[in-house]
């Protein structure tokens, strides 16, 4: 099949970018979306042009590196799917496809579709961990944890840190990402002890990084490839208010 692409090209962090048109033919429906871009890049090299830069690594939906806005939707038309897992059979011959980077003040563009997501690392650094140094751990079966609790913690811990939630949110809020970490850790007995400080610190860090506030549109959940639930945002707010109320 043949597609008409409009791709965001931008030289540097500070330069002005724009949409550039490309026609790509010879696409097979079995290709992944990123393989389609590989094909285009191979042709750009032949023409002596700079390739389209995009982040990717595992190409199996787990590292969270890939991610772009495809026809205005984070990771493209399917739900529960990363860009690398999206295949060309989801597109029609002759279609025009708009490809842009994830956009947010806290995610500056580096080049083309590559963005800087280090703000997510900063949020985790502000408290998204359990303080258990190597050597301190007790015997692992000494604290039983209910099956359902572990499963619920897992659901939250499954976040791949891709940033689709931020890119989808009209406020560029990182609430889904942050709350998934809050939930993961607060649900487990090991993580409860530090929960008050953690939630206050992480929520403040979101503001510092320049993410917007959550206004409960729930758009993020729809585009999250790991189907992380917005209920975690509710838990984060609850934990945050509890922490503030109990603070002396």
């Amino acid at each position, binding site marked *: 099949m043949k597609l008409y692409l409009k791709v965001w090209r931008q030289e540097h962090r500070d330069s002005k970018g724009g949409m550039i048109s490309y026609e790509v033919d010879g696409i097979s429906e079995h290709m992944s979306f990123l393989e389609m871009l590989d094909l285009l890049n191979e042709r750009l090299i032949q023409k002596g*042009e700079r390739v389209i830069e995009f982040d990717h690594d595992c*190409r199996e939906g787990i590292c969270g590196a890939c991610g772009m806005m495809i026809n205005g939707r984070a990771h493209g038309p399917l739900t529960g799917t990363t860009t690398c*897992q999206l295949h060309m059979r989801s597109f029609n011959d002759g279609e025009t496809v708009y490809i842009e980077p994830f956009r947010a003040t806290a995610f500056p563009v580096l080049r083309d579709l590559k963005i800087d997501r280090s703000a997510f690392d900063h949020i985790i*650094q502000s408290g998204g961990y359990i303080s258990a140094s190597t050597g301190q751990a007790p015997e692992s*079966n000494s604290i*039983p944890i209910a099956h359902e609790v572990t499963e619920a913690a897992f659901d939250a811990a499954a976040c791949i840190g891709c940033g689709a939630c931020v890119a989808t949110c009209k406020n560029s809020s990182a609430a889904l990402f942050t709350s998934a970490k809050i939930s993961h850790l607060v649900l487990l007995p090991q*993580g409860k002890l530090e929960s008050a400080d953690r939630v206050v610190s992480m929520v403040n860090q979101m503001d510092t990084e320049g993410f917007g506030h959550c206004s409960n549109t729930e758009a993020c959940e729809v585009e999250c490839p790991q189907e992380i639930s917005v209920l975690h945002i509710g838990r984060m707010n609850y934990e945050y208010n509890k922490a503030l109320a109990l603070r002396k």
Partner: protein
Amino acid sequence: MIDAKIPAGDLADKWNNYKDSSKLINPANRKKLDIIVVGTGLAGSSCAATLAEQGYNVKSFCFQDSARRAHSVAAQGGVNAAKNYKNDGDSVYRMFYDTIKGGDFRSREANVYRLAECSLALIDQAVAQGVPFAREYGGYLNNRSFGGVQVSRTFYARGQTGQQLMIGAYQALMRQVSAGKVKTYTRHEMLDLVLIDGKARGIIARNLETGEIERHVANAVVLATGGYGKVYYLSTLAMGCNSSAIWRAHKKGAFMSGVSWIQFHPTCLPQIGETQSKLTLMSESLRNDGRIWVPKKAGDERVPNDIPEEERDYYLERRYPTFGNLSPRDISSRAAKERIDAGCGVGPMKNAVCLDFSKAIREQGRDKIEEKYGNLFRMYDKINGVDAYKEPMLISPAAHFTMGGLWVDYDLMTTIPGLFALGEANFSDHGANRLGANSLLQSCVDGYFIAPYTIPNYLSGELKAEKVTTDHPAFIDAENNVREQLNRFLNLKGHLSADHFHKTLGKLLYDKCGLSRTRKSLEEAIVEIRSLKKSFDHELKITGDEGVNSELEKAGRVSDFLELGELMCHDALQREESCGAHFREEYQTPDGEAVRNDKDFCYVSAWEWKGEAVEPELHKEPLVFETVKLTVRSYK
């Protein structure tokens, strides 16, 4: 002769003896010591975090945009530990034995015993960090059994065990960043190792965001840069996985071992087109209920569902009646290749075999199968657009795990003093074949529990070493070499992309140094790789500039893969036996089983770099078995 420095004493006491007598550094002095850790996978993150907790200053490097994305994140199945929670007779010794045997008696007893011993603490550590391992309804940890062993010792977090362990290690690392003990350098690629007075004292790295070439100095350097299975281009590895860090260290004097011992995973999605970039792994657990077959007749053009039962060859059940569809990875992969080569492959490229659930669905019901493997069937559908409840999955062996890597001694130190190698980047614990769920373990154990003892032991001798800065001529030299190579790539006036060379090399290695090899195929491969390298040096074309440039990154990696590929062939050629993943067609029984030669090859081959297109030099580390008896590894 190279010395592995195995501590004295009984097998079960060696590690304790080591710890009891290793040298300590007082906390005030730890603050004065800097350590570079390249890699943020399980091995790198855990090592960097633990050293920082101890008080050392750590610089942590990775090429991804966040430490959390290292390829450890992709491991699905689980992690082994000899906890014996199932009360099924497991023990440290049994796990040690299974691992030694699984590796076809080509690993060191002392290292493997330590791996099993430290497995207990790893589960404790991970749980304390918040890793949500599967639990029983009573709240205790659950286990399952995994490839080729009779006990249930595998801990798992759904099909995302690697991701969950990785997040635990990443968060421990981030905690140390906020404590000011670790500085992270993401989007940085190590391009050379710097030696001063014969010791590892720093690295040259390229900032992949700005293109700047940076010098970093330290008292010791740790390489935890993962496996190099991507040398085959099509593999289960991530696109960025590479050998550059270990290869450049090799060229600076670190020996490489087990270089050609590559595990091919039997249950991966086959290649279906020329533009394909990745062979996705489907969990091996599918083999518990799926039956593997190919048509009896070569060149059968019918779709699998149209082939009647009596015309199907369930070749694993036929050849290995005891283990059948659950035969170990190397054996299953080789058997598939044998049938595919005989013309019995299925699928559009005739390169796959069927993994059929119809019997299981008939006997257990679709619901049951859906409950067990629903997510895998969904993933299969997502990638292929095929409903595997209705037709067999098509699977095929793919390059997956590298048993080989930098040679290390018991301290995990390479032949270069002060240079350590951890995780998949070293060669040490898996012998010629790795058992499933043992490598997450090895990466974690290396990083959390071993290196934090052995590195200080080394550093204690470095307290009085001369202080060096990045102005040292060795740094200037190394930086110049890196710059020269990058400029050469950018200025080449060729016409072929880095991917073109990578794909060509990958195909060549699959054919000639893959699941099976012969003297002839390897000799041919060496000649062909040399000529491919020549063509690469002249006909490569890189567009773009020194800034963000993924093509420039690829060029360096492919250049190293080409040299590594040649060493793989030398390694496979020199070892005139079949063992584990290394199957030399000349050495097999009449019914196609591997023939190991303990008389002549019971040693580790450690290769020394001698220059481009020059034969490498072989050093031998004899393998001494004091505890186990060498037997034939049979799964008939």
